[in-house]
């Protein structure tokens, strides 16, 4: 139990997706101009990561990993090179499915952040979640916790940046720094802050 909890914390804070691993920065920067849209993106990310990482774990273990076909008499079959295509297919299908379900049962939720869902298909952070899961050979419960934790970390970071940038709309910045430039520098400062979490993890 404590292991899972520490994995959750490290996925959310120490290995924060956008701030320390540079993952999912395109949407991170594009949709953080306002705290409201940032919150929508954060919730969508948490949901999609929490679903796709365990799902891809099942697919990888059941179909692709070396030795997965032993029961069918093919113990040497190693399909792991197909994992990239399989993962992206699962992610695209999940995102589509989530969008349809939300539209059908929770139209209000869909209206507020449904527009972000299709974007998440090509979000590097989501694919990276599945690739890390294979790379670090997590178990099933670990993959659930890892997916939720990294989604939450992304949400925290994007909402914070959204809040800061919302205030900055009224600041008098040099013309060349407006928009993207200052967003990078802010992200760098936040990344410095998050670097202190790594120290905490080491001193434990």
């Amino acid at each position, binding site marked *: 139990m404590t292991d899972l909890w520490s994995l959750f914390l490290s996925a959310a804070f120490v290995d924060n997706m956008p701030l320390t691993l540079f993952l999912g920065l395109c949407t991170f920067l594009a949709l953080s101009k306002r705290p409201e849209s940032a919150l929508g993106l954060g919730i969508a990310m948490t949901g999609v990561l929490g679903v796709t990482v365990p799902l891809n774990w099942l697919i990888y273990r059941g179909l692709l990993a070396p030795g997965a076909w032993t029961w069918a008499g093919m113990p040497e079959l190693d399909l792991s090179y197909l994992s990239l295509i399989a993962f992206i297919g699962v992610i695209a299908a999940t995102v589509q499915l989530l969008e349809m379900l939300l539209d059908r049962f929770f139209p209000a939720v869909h209206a507020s952040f449904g527009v972000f869902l299709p974007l998440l298909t090509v979000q590097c952070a989501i694919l990276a979640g599945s*690739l890390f899961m294979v790379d670090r050979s997590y178990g099933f419960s670990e993959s659930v916790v890892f997916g939720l934790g990294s989604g939450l970390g992304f949400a925290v970071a994007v909402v914070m940046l959204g809040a800061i940038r919302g205030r900055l709309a009224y600041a008098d910045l040099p013309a060349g720094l407006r928009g993207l430039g200052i967003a990078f520098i802010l992200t760098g400062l936040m990344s410095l802050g998050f670097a202190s979490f790594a120290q905490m993890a080491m001193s434990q």
Partner: protein
Amino acid sequence: MAARIDFWATLTDPLLRQNPVTLQILGICSALAVTTSLATALTMSVSLTLVLTLSAVLISLIRRHIPDTIRLIVQIVIVASLVIVIDQILQAYFAEISRALSIYVGLITTNCLVLGRTEAYARHHAPVPAAVDAFGNGLGYSLILLTLGGVRELFGRGQLFGWQAFPLADAGGWFTPLGLMLLAPSAFFLLGGLVWAIRSWRVEQTEALEHVPPARTMTVE
């Protein structure tokens, strides 16, 4: 016949005027993650340019046969197949660099740059202009990556491509490496500064003010 497409402009526009990283905000994730040294930055640039050009040509060839509703899936499958090929080649012949890049080669699949260019350009153009546009964007991306990689390796380790450019203080030289340059925050600061520099030079790229302060009404007595 439609107006001749200006190949030279298509090729050079993405270098500075329409740079994919600093203006279009495409493909930033990998641009920052792999730039701790020039060697990884170069490998990543070459891989991305290859994948981008090949996928643009392939998608442009079958552009009349892709149904609009499933085009994203088709494009992503083509890109993913090419990325798998590159990944396997890197693992076979450049094992060390492949380990340094870890999952970031796989992430070319979801690099917004690749999908952005195929979606915005290759889908509507013949194979040759599509290839030129993709190659130009690949070069623009590589330019930023190599600049960042060069600065970070030079000041972080005093090296260029592993060759000691500045003699280190430990070895009797004068240069003390800046450890921060190899960490995540410096990548953001450098790219932010680069964007600032480019936009101060090319003023037309600056973003419009979101909030215009009300003009102060002066009452003259």
